[in-house]
């Protein structure tokens, strides 16, 4: 079984070298409005409990239900504030979408390419998925096993992402250049696995007649 760390670090091939880091660390000119909605300094790491607490507090203050009998302008403001808050919460609560948002808004372009070897690793499983789709039930056990394995892996990768995010926040701009590649690989691999699992789940839920 392939260890998660190996998947993340066995890279170095040329196709990964597309990330560009801007030297800018001052976010005041950027578009970090999702952080502003929570009065948080832009950072990759976020304390989930604190974020939720802020979300509830601001919802209580700004939800349109609190303005049921207010003027049209106040109601519009409540709607704008709350939709921005909800949009921000949706993006920031999930580490992967937060990471993508953060880099995009800080002017860092991430490559969407998968680490080499990933597609090969999944080649056989994708074939099995196709066979099951076509009705060959003999592939079901293999896919159940894969689902369990990669669900666990996804969790592991989540933890790893948290660690990398913390490091990134602490690092100087030049150090950040080093860690951005593994983060990028982690994000891309996670996205791929999550999509794969969604497809597998969908198919496993279709029971044989």
């Amino acid at each position, binding site marked *: 079984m392939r260890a998660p760390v190996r998947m993340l670090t066995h890279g170095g091939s040329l196709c990964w070298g597309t990330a560009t880091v801007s030297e800018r660390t001052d976010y005041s000119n950027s578009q970090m409005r999702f952080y502003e909605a929570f009065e948080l300094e832009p950072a990759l790491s976020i304390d989930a409990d604190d974020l939720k607490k802020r979300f*509830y507090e601001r*919802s*209580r203050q700004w*939800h*349109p*239900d*609190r303005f*049921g*009998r207010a003027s049209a302008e106040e109601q519009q403001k409540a*709607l704008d504030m*709350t*939709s*921005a808050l*909800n*949009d921000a*919460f*949706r993006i920031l609560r999930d580490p992967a979408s937060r990471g993508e948002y953060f880099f995009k808004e800080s002017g860092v372009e991430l490559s969407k390419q998968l680490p080499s070897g990933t597609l090969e690793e999944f080649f056989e499983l994708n074939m099995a998925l196709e066979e099951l789709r076509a009705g060959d039930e003999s592939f079901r056990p293999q896919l159940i096993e894969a689902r369990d394995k990669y669900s666990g892996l996804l969790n592991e990768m989540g933890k790893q992402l948290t660690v990398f995010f913390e490091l990134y926040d602490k690092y100087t701009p030049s150090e950040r250049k080093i860690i951005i590649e593994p983060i990028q690989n982690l994000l891309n691999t996670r996205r791929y696995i999550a999509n794969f699992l969604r497809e597998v789940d969908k198919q496993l*839920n279709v029971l044989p007649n």
Partner: protein
Amino acid sequence: MSFQIDFGGEKSPIVGIDLGTTNSLVAVMELTGPRILSGIVPSVVSVNQAGEVIAGAEAREMLLTHPERTVYSVKRLMGRGVEDIQEELKLFPFHIAEGSESTIKLKLGDKTFTPPEVSAHILHRLKLDAEAELGVQITQAVITVPAYFNDAQRQATKDAGRIAGLEVLRLVNEPTAAALAYGLDKRNEGIVAVYDFGGGTFDISILRLHDGIFEVLATNGDTHLGGDDIDNLLLKIALEDIQSEWNEDVSKKSDAVQLLRRAVIDAKEQLSFLPAAVIDLAYDGKKYQREISRDLFDTLIAPVIDRTLGPCRNCIKDAGVSVEEIDEVVMVGGSTRIPLVRSAVEVLFRKRPHTELNPDEVVALGAAVQAGILSGDVEDKLLLDVTPLSLGIETMGGLVSKLIHRNSTIPASATEQFTTAVDGQRNVLIHVVQGERELVKDCRSLARFDLKDIAPMPAGFARIEVRFLIDANGILSVTARDQRSGKEQSVEIKPSYGLTDDQVEAMILESFDKAQEDFHERQLREARVEADAILAATDKAKQNDAYFELTDEERAAIERGVNELLVVYHGDDHLLVRSKIDQLNEATQTLAENMMNTAVRGALKGTNVNG
């Protein structure tokens, strides 16, 4: 001489309305909690021989005598087009008028109505009932909708409110409303699943309750699955029986079908607490009886109940919780009285569901609580609801590009950049759809938006930012801005189903004006009844000894009160009549107290201690 609680100051209360497939209810928030006003109103509308529209219990009787001019379960048609309802038409006797396409028109007698108009008559009935009971005019309401209702169905419900003369301050999802009523009563913390199986719709919602916040984690359902479907199964059996016993096909005789439908519903309801029940029909001098055992009933309805379990599993998954983490399952809707439903839910959720709340009332009570939140009377509760379906736009090749995913907390928004494909292009058409499938043809078309009057420029140069916003009612709005000029870009919306604003406006005026007039007349009539009562009481009191014990000024004040009330009595200002009633009330205060004291003294004197 009267005592009244002044609740909500000078503003009239906001009512909460459960606009159900089979029955509807109205409730209001009071100091002691939510209260149901008057009684259940069957969601049936009919046009009588005189051409008057009637709604509620009377209309339900008309269903038996004049089924051709009566409609029930209209909620199934809300926000739908004719091509959507072909399946429904096989099972429900809807009389569709000619020329119906994206907007259905129903024929009742010689009149035609859109589904929102039919619903408006039910809402209007509830409005009148609430006004009669509360003695104030009702202009604002919270109306509940199935959580799984799409944009068009929500919009149609809101339109119905407007047509009925009600400003719909909020559409609340039925299971969420139930959770609110439940949370008020039973539990304030934890994870709660609400299984809402009503007359025509099924919803499942999972909520996290924390410190007064009711946060919906996920919702799922089927807007065309309910007790109606169970009725139709029994109906089919009975019709086949009758065909062979009487050698007669009564399925085309709408009066016979309605009688049989009533018989089937009676049997179904009995089967919730008896091991067997009889479908009993007397028609045209003939009798039909058929015993249905609980076992047969369970076998028959198992597929219907199974259809609720898939959405439950998906909902648990989407909520990101395990079955073990769910603390309670709350049952809502009349169909949850069926034992097989309860046991299926118990097996799936691995815990005994809560059935002690009245499943018919809990949604209306929750709607009243939400009305209390909106009016500011309830300060410590807040609902955070989600959109049940993903919102997307059509991209090349008939594919859907999702902008807002299902189960996103609402209000929610998304912005997207659009540009032109051809030099000098002036318009961009955007097709908005709702649903989870990848192809446009498998999703629900909501609307087409035409971005108009784009300044001519080479292809790909235009930068138009479009903002899609789903508000707290789950209803979509769209705004667009030209990024280059910073100007608002005009957006022309063509809803795929339903009524335009102008159409709704045209429907309102008539019924609304009439309602105003009716209301005013009733207010006046009620004020006069009260005036009669106090004038009679004063007249009688003047014979009492206590009257002569009053000072001259006190007697003069009473005389003045009587005369002034008589002067305004025949005018048409009920508020003036009321103010003069109050004035006389005050003037007779001392007299009333003295009479009371005399009466009490008399009573005490006459009391024997050994009684």
